[in-house]
C-alpha cells in the first residue's frame, strides 16, 4: 500500500481511481484538444466574417465573373464525410480498448488523409483566382490554406499515433490520445462544410 495516513488528518485515498486519465471531458487531454479547437474555430469564424465583410463591399463577386469549379471540392467534401467512418471506428475502438481495431482503422484514417491532401492539391489548381489577383482571390486562398493546414496537421498527428500504435503495446494513455485525435478529425470535417459552401457557393448564391 502506497498511501499513508497522515498524522492529525483524515485522508481521502484516491489510489483506487482510474489512472492514466479518462476519456472525454472527464480527462485532461480533452480540455486541451477542445481549447485548441475553440481557438482555431475562432480563426475560421474571423476569416469567414472577413469573407462576407469584403463581399458586401463590392458589386461583382468574384470579380472575374467565372465561378469556381465544383468538381474537386465536392469530391473532397464527399471523401471527408466518408472518412468520418474509419475515424469513428477508431474512436469507439479506443474507448473500448480494442488494439487491433484501433490499428487498422487508424491506418485507414491515414490513407484517407493522404488521399484528401492529394485531392486538395488538385483543388487548389482548379480555383478561379490567384491569391494576388484581388481580395476575392486572397480570401478564397486564405480559407483554403487555413483548412489545408489543419488537414495537414491532423494527418501528421494521425500518422504519428498510428506509428506509435503499430510499434508499441497500446495502453490507456494512448487510447485517450486516439480518442481525442478522433475528436479533432470531426472538427476538421465539420469546418470543411462551411468553408466549402463559402468558397464554392457564396459566389453562386450571393
Amino acid at each position, binding site marked *: 500500500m*502506497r*498511501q*499513508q*495516513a*497522515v*498524522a*492529525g*488528518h*483524515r*485522508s*481521502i*485515498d*484516491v*489510489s*483506487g*481511481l*482510474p*489512472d*492514466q*486519465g*479518462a476519456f472525454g*471531458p*472527464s*480527462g*485532461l487531454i480533452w*480540455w*486541451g484538444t477542445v*481549447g*485548441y479547437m*475553440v*481557438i*482555431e474555430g*475562432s*480563426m475560421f469564424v*474571423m*476569416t469567414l466574417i*472577413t469573407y462576407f*465583410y*469584403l463581399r458586401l*463591399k*463590392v458589386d461583382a463577386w468574384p*470579380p472575374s465573373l467565372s465561378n469556381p469549379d465544383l468538381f474537386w471540392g465536392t469530391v473532397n467534401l464527399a471523401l471527408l464525410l466518408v472518412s468520418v467512418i474509419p475515424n469513428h471506428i477508431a474512436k469507439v475502438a479506443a474507448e473500448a480498448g480494442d488494439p487491433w481495431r484501433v490499428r487498422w482503422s487508424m491506418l485507414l484514417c491515414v490513407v484517407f488523409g493522404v488521399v484528401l491532401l492529394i485531392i486538395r492539391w488538385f483543388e487548389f489548381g482548379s480555383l478561379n483566382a490567384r*491569391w*494576388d*489577383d*484581388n*481580395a476575392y*482571390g*486572397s*480570401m478564397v*486562398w*486564405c480559407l483554403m490554406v487555413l483548412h489545408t493546414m489543419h488537414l495537414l496537421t491532423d494527418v*501528421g498527428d494521425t500518422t*504519428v499515433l498510428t506509428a*506509435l500504435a503499430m510499434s*508499441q*503495446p497500446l*495502453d490507456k*494513455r*494512448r487510447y485517450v490520445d486516439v480518442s481525442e485525435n478522433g475528436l479533432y478529425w470531426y472538427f476538421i470535417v465539420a469546418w470543411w462544410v462551411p468553408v466549402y459552401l463559402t468558397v464554392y457557393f457564396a459566389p453562386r448564391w450571393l
Partner: protein
Amino acid sequence: MMPPLTFDPRRSGIHSRARGNGPAADGTAAERAALEKTWHVPEGILGWFSVVDHRTIGRRYLVTALGFFLVAGILAVLMRLQLAVPDNQLIGPDRYNQIFTVHGTIMMFLFAVPVMEAMGIYLVPLMVGARNIAFPRLNTFSYFVYLFGGLMLLIVLLLNSAPDVGWFSYPPLAGPDYTPGKRADFWAQLITFTEVAALAVAVEIVATVFKMRAPGMTLDRIPLFVWAMLVTAFMIIFAMPAVVTASSFLLMDRLVGTHFYNPAEGGDALLYQHLFWFFGHPEVYIIFVPALGMVSSIVTTFTGRPIVGYTAMVLSLVATGFLGFGLWVHHMFATGLPQLGLTYFTAASMTIAIPSGIQIFCWIASIWRGTPRFTPPMLFVLGFIAIFVLGGLTGVTLASVPFNLQVHDTYYVVAHFHYVLLGGAVFPLVGGIHYWFPKITGRLMDEGLARLSFWLLFIGFNITFFPMHQLGLMGMPRRVYTYPAASGWGPLNLLSTLGAGLLAIGGLLFVWNLARSVRSGAVAGDDPWGGDTLEWGTSSPPPVYNFLHPPVVEGPNALWDRSADAPVVTGLRTDCREVLITDVVDATPNNRYEFPEPSIWPFLAAVATSAMFVGSIFTAWAVPIGIVPIAIAVTGWFWPKRKEAAA
C-alpha cells in the same frame, strides 16, 4: 462559519479514512524524498532548457516580462525627454516613431499580458492545490516562443529596423506600399509569437482551473484571483485569434501581395481596424482583469475578512469578460460609421463601467468592514483605487461619441489608458509582487524601500499623466515627435517629463528592492501575511511537488476555513508524476493522470517555430520548409519514453 467538508466520496475508488494514528514522521520523510526525486527540476544547460516545472517557468516569465518592462520604460523616458520642450532636436522622427511603436508593442504584448500570465502560471496551480500546471511541456514551449519573439523585437530595435507604424499598425501606412522593407513585418510576426505563447498559456490555465482543483474546491470556493485568470484565459482564447487574423493578413499583403487591405482590388482598410480592435479592446481587460484578482487577494488578506460580495465579484468578472467583446468600435468613432451603431457602442462602453464599479464598491465595503493593515501591498491597492477610479471615469467620458470625436487620438487618451493600465494593472501587479514575493523566494521585500518606491511611483505617476488630460484638451495629438512652441503645450509637457523622472526613480527603486531582497531579505516563513488561499499553506518557496498531500478545501477562504482535522488527498503515486484530475463543477476526484517528465523537445519545437516565424518574414517558402523541423520536434515531444510505454 462555513459548512465543513461538503465533499462527497461517491466514487468507488475513494475511501474516506479516519485520522491516521500512524507513525507519520519517517513515512512522511520518505514520501517527501520520493516526491523530491520524481518532481525534480533538471540541472545543467540541457536541464535549463528542459524544465517543465510551473514555478520555474512562471519565474522566468516574470523576470523576462519585467526585463521588457524596463526596456519599454527606458523608451518611455526617451520619449518624455524628446517632448520635454518644444521643437526639441534630441530624437528625429524616424527614431521616435520606432521608439513609441516599440514602447507600445512591448508594453502590450511583451510585458502586460505575459506578466499577468506569469503570475497565473506561478500561482494558479498553487491556489487550486495542484502539483503542476496542466500541459507543462506546452508551458515550456510557450515561454521560449515568447522569449524568442521578444528578443527578435529588441534586436531589430538595435538594428534601426524596428517597426515604426504604431503598436496598432494600421494599413495602409503599415502596408507594403507605405512601409517598404521589413519593419512592419517584424511587428506582425511579433504578434504571432506572442499570441502563440499567450494562447498556449490560456489553454493551460483553463484546463488547470477546470480539471485540477483540489477536492472540495467547488466553483463557489475558487479564489477570486483564479476566477480572474480563468476569465482572462477565456478572453485570450476568443480575442487573440482576431489579431492573429489581422496581422497575418497584413503579413500576407506585404509578403505575397494579397489584397485584404487594398481598396483598389476589393479590400478594405477599415477591415483591419475592426479585426484589430475586436482583439484590442478585450486586450485591455485581459491585462486588467488579473490585476482585479490580485487586488481581491490582497484586500482579503490585509483586511482579515472574507471579501464582501464574493458572488457579485465573480459575476462582475464574468460580465466584464463578455462585455469586453461588445465595444471595439469605440476606437473607431472618427471613421464615419453610421450614427445609430455608434450609439449602441456608446451604451455598451459605458455599461462596462458597472461591473468595474461593483468591484470597487465591494473592495471599499471589505475595507470598511475589516481592519486594514497598511502593508506595502495594501498601499499599492489603495493607490490603485485612487488612480483607477479616475481612469475609469475618463473612460466613461471617452465612451460618449461626440466627446470622443474631440479627444480621440489626443494626449487625453494617453492619460486615460495610462491611468487604467499603469494605475489599474501595474499598481496591483507591483502590489501583488510585494505580496507574493515571500512565497516565490522565501524572503520578504524591504518594507521601507517598498513604501518609498510606492510614494515615488504614486506621485510620479500623477505628475506624469494627469497633465496629459489637459494637454489632450488643448489639442495635442498622440504620436507626434515634436510640437511648436506656439502650441502652448510646452509647460505641461515639461511637468510631465519631470514626473516621468520621479516615476523612473520609483521604478528603479522597486527593481533594486527586488534584486537585494532576493539575496538578503528577511526570511519570510510559510505564511507571513496570514493569507487565506492555498499557496500560503505550503512552504516558501514551495517544494517542487507543491504539496506533500494535495489539500482538501472546506470553504471559500481555504486556509481560514480549514478545520483542525482537515482531510488531505493520499494515494497518488510518488514514483511518477501523477496528479489528481477532478470534476469541473464540484471538484470531485475523477481520475489520476501522469504528467510528462522534463524534455528538451519543447525547447527545440520553440526554436523550430521561431525559425519558421522569422524566416516567413523574408520568404513564404519558410512555411513549407519550416514545418518539417517543427513536425520532427513535436513528434519527439509527444513520443513516449520506453519506460512509460512499458509501465
